[in-house]
């Protein structure tokens, strides 16, 4: 599985892309983007939303917006997107 960060999130974390192995044991909890956010400690600090994925950060799975609690599958590309400022 590929994890991608953009813009301010990438610079804060110090990386833009990481490959991870999903835990595929039958008794393993399905991994979600929200769980990955905690696991990879992507919050600015413990005081930042208690380490949870903030509502301002959107999730994309395989380049489409997705709910943070959608289960992830092997081979998925999951991205964390800071607030969008286009146009």
């Amino acid at each position, binding site marked *: 599985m590929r994890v991608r960060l953009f*813009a*301010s999130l990438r*610079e804060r974390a110090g990386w833009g892309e990481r490959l991870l192995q999903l835990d595929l044991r039958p008794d393993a909890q399905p991994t979600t983007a929200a769980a990955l956010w905690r696991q990879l400690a992507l919050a600015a600090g413990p005081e930042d939303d208690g380490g949870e994925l903030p509502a301002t950060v959107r999730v*994309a799975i395989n380049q489409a917006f997705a709910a943070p609690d959608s289960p992830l599958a092997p081979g998925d590309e999951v*991205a964390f*997107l800071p607030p*969008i*400022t*286009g*146009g």
Partner: protein
Amino acid sequence: MSTTSPVRPAPPIVVQLLEAPFQPLERLAAWQRSLAAEGPDATGSAAESHFIGRVRPTTATGEPLEALELEHYPGMTEAQLRALAEACAARHGAGAVLVAHRVGRVRPGEAIVLVAVQADRRGPALRCVQELLEDLKHHAPFWKREWSGGRGTWVAGNTPL
């Protein structure tokens, strides 16, 4: 006997991500020529609306701006722009849509975005341009960084309408 209703052909949607400065009026002219080449029945082109956005010369805090840096999510940004344009065209019954958007380093005064819509009437053409512009500002993955005094600052949110 078939009772299917007539299906309107999907309107032509053109999405362009541009890494170098562009001339919006030249882009518009090329787009109009390409639509005209498809024949007068290809689109309902009695009305056409355009928006050109340019980089302002100051930062959000009023400092002189050297450049705006536009980051995007290659693949998703194009797909999302196309999906937003298709949805907006369908809502308004627009006949054709063009979206051109810069990426990379954009200097003050340069065009950053161009949205154009052809429709049968002024209402749909104008409304579709405005809606699509707001949609892409909030839902197409782009991130702006302001460069001023040699320092880059990520922009926290969109400017007010």
